[in-house]
């Protein structure tokens, strides 16, 4: 079991095993010694015969501690049985009852959870009388609300799943669903939680006994031993060591084992983008210049100049040797299927590739490498717009202040100036009544308004380049159109260049002058949008054929591209598109075509 490898789970397992062995053999081995009175050696500290000293009857405290294991564990088991017998049914009830009764039960569980466990336990112990029985009932009952709530939460998750919905459609009753579908699926996390509860019961019982409300003499558990020895801690601190350590080790053992396993089983393993490289640099990914890469001939007027950009995560390289440039005022589109590396290209242009990604090649903004630009320059000269405007604005802050902070952080503006600028920019993206909008929170905005606000945020500085990564994918079609028009307008009026990333060829071709087509991490063709219908790369052709427009013949099925794009870990040696390409030659499968005149293809379409 791989999840046993966490140190806390291992430590817990070890402690639990030792405790259980001691619980079995403890009374046999040390029971007699623990009960043997010795009136001549009462209340002693450490000595060779009695390493932990003796109690008021001269009985050896080490032997008593070891012999008390069985009693302590046994009472904890009883208390946990009570918790389980009451908590699991109570938590499962809401999924069996009708909606009204379910809501009532849930409310009851929630109110009970609000009470401190120890107070519930003391209340129960008070009713049952101070003693082992009262303590067990008290600790057992006190943990019921917690377990009930966990059971309910787990049951809710399962009840919301598709297979339960299917069973319900098929006419299965609530109880049948609970027994057949819900309980088996939540059994594992429940059992682990109950294991952890055993630990907490052990600690709780020890607490009650320590307070004198639990086990009463002549019986003894660890808590009772602590209760008896505690007043002597000021003279002989070693006398409390035995029971204190025993409680600590056993209690935390069960708790650690249960908790760490429960966490491991509840967590959906989140696979990292790629296994981290052994020498992945820390912090923000840095730009590495490839060796022997001299100054490249670059168009001096280019706002953005990308040369041999390669982004890799460990052994996986989703972006490979991408080169392109964007002139001032130009709007360039990047299209490709998801997984083609277009979004990572956008992130690399923004210097935002997440850890542990590494970026090689060069990205020049206004002729200077990104790494050389100050934070202030990056913050004002470069604007980014991301796909989901619902998530891109901070829900806890007013829209106006999210805009204004750009001016205060980078332009040295006062709060008032920054605010004025924010309102003015919100007006520029055509938000009605910008003064009022600035005071609102993002949740009060519609999706289109949020995306406008994000664009306005980019305009807070004096952007030379706006990188928009699927800016309209999450929006309604009508809103999409207006946001795109706004981007085009901003591009026109401010002279800022734009890089528009989209999977939608229609979107890109309508607004951008030039289109870069990406496939499996590489640019396969670069062409003016007006030339798209005469594209030479078979992949571009296929993309054009697959995106319908008004002239598409509706009587024929829409063209699709057979096969799928290779994942970035399994890109073949030759042309990555070759396996799906009707025009592929033998050469395409072995030699990779280098881009020549904006086309990387061995056998391009001719007409």
């Amino acid at each position, binding site marked *: 079991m791989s999840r046993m490898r966490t*140190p*806390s789970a291992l430590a817990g397992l070890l402690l639990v095993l030792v405790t259980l062995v001691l619980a079995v053999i403890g009374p046999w081995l040390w029971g007699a010694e623990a009960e043997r009175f010795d009136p001549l050696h009462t209340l002693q500290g450490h000595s060779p015969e009695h390493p932990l000293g003796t109690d008021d009857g001269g009985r050896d405290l080490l032997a008593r501690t070891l012999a008390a294991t069985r009693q302590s564990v046994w009472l904890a088991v009883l208390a946990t049985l009570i918790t389980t017998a009451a908590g699991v049914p109570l938590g499962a009830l809401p999924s069996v009852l009708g909606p009204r009764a379910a809501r009532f039960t849930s409310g009851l569980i*929630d*109110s009970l*959870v*609000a*009470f*401190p*466990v*120890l*107070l519930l336990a*003391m209340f129960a112990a*008070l*009713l049952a*009388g*101070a003693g082992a029985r009262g303590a067990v009932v008290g600790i057992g009952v006190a943990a019921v609300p917690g377990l009930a709530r966990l059971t309910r939460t787990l049951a809710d998750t399962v009840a919301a799943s598709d297979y339960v919905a299917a069973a319900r459609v098929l006419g299965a009753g609530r109880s049948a669903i609970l027994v057949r579908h819900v309980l088996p699926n939540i059994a594992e996390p429940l059992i682990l939680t109950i294991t952890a509860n055993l630990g*907490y019961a052990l*600690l709780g019982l*020890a*607490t009650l006994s*320590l*307070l*004198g*409300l639990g086990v009463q003499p002549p019986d003894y558990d660890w808590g009772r031993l602590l209760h008896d020895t*505690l007043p002597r*801690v*000021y003279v002989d*601190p070693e006398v409390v060591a035995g029971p*204190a350590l025993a*409680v*600590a080790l056993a*209690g*935390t053992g069960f708790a*650690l084992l249960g*908790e*760490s396993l429960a966490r491991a089983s509840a967590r959906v393993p989140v696979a990292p983008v790629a296994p981290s490289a052994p020498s992945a640099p820390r912090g923000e990914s840095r730009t590495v210049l490839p060796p022997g890469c001299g100054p490249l001939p670059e168009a001096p007027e280019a706002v953005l100049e990308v040369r041999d950009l390669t982004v890799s995560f460990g052994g996986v390289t989703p972006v490979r040797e991408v080169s392109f440039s964007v002139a001032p005022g130009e709007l360039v589109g990047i299209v490709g299927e998801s997984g083609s590396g277009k979004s990572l290209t956008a992130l690399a242009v*923004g210097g*935002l590739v997440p850890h*542990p990604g590494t970026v090689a090649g060069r990205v020049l903004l206004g002729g200077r490498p990104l790494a050389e630009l100050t934070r*202030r320059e990056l*913050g004002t000269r470069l*604007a*980014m717009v*991301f*796909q*989901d405007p619902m*998530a*891109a*604005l*901070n*829900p*806890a*802050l007013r829209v106006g202040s999210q805009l204004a*902070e*750009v001016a205060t*952080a*980078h332009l040295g503006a006062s709060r008032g100036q920054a605010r004025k600028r924010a309102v003015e920019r919100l007006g520029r993206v055509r938000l009605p009544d910008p003064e009022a909008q600035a005071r609102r*929170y993002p*949740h009060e905005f519609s999706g289109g308004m949020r995306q406008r606000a994000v664009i306005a*945020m980019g305009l807070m500085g004096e952007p030379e380049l706006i990188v928009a990564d699927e800016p309209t994918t999450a929006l309604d079609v009508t809103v999409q159109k207006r946001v795109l028009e706004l981007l085009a307008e901003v591009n026109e009026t401010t002279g800022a260049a734009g890089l528009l990333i989209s999977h939608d060829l229609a979107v890109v071709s309508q607004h951008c002058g030039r289109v870069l087509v990406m496939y499996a991490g590489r640019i396969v063709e670069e062409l003016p949008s007006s030339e798209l219908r005469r594209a030479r790369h078979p992949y571009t052709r296929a993309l054009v054929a697959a995106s319908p427009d008004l002239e598409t013949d509706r009587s024929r099925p829409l063209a699709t591209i057979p096969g799928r794009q290779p994942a970035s870990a399994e890109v073949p040696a030759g042309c990555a598109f070759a396996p799906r390409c009707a025009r592929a030659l033998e050469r395409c499968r072995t030699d990779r075509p280098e881009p020549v005149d904006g086309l990387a293809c061995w056998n391009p379409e001719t007409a």
Partner: protein
Amino acid sequence: MFLLRRATRFALSLVLVVLASFAMLHLIPGDPVRAALGPTAPREAVEQRRAELGLDRPWPEQLRTYLGKVATGDFGESFLSRQPAGQVVADRFPATVQLVVVTVALALLVAVPLGMAMAARTHGGRGRRSELAFTSVTGGLSVIPEFLLAVAMIALFGVVLRWLPVAGKDGAASFVMPVLALAAGPTALLARLVRMETLRELSSDYVRLARAKRLPAVRLYLVHLLPNSLTATLTTGGLVLTSLLGGSVVVEYVFQWPGLGGTTVEAIAGKDYALAQAAILVYGAVSLTVVFLVDLALGLLDPRSRPRMLG
């Protein structure tokens, strides 16, 4: 709507606590007065006491009297000392409040910056060793019960090193050990929570956009992340606060802190039911109030729920 629902639940829970404290005397198996006075007490004394407490009347009438008395702050007389139970509680409770408030302040002051710093250090799979150290230490601390820390500290700092007073409440030094013993677990739990929440927020889109804006790290963490991660943290934090009340009972007992906890333990052990009743009533009401206030604070903090709350 939100406010109304929360207030209703709060009121219902309070009623539940009052009813439970009333029912307590009646649920005790046998005769509570006999139990309190002991088996050797003369029958007449028991009968007289029962009459004094009104236990000989029918229970609906008792309930009415009880509710009336609780409403006017009359919690009856301690069985043992014959002092008004309300007075005893009022004398002892401030020391408990002081202990808990200092503990909460310390826990928040340590846990929030620590959790955020650990999140910043470990997000995106970096700093594996720091992560392991953090989760192991906080995992261990969060399950070790207060009284063990208390006993260990007494032995080390009080008896062996003699740095700190071992018991009682006398000046700032006497707060150190009780507060540390009480704060360790909640601090560890909260720090874990803050880290998890911050990690979740760090991978969100708005943080990416904030990074794209190249905001200074201080602004990114304090202005953008903190409000969002704190909401979820406080939800569980409220429960941590109430569990502190329970933990304080034990810590007070071990350090002989002159608070309500020790009194409650003595009352239960000595079968002083009136005093126990009053103490449980106070603890219950305080826990519920804390949870209610945290709920309200959350509603106010989160702009999304604000209009619903007021409207």
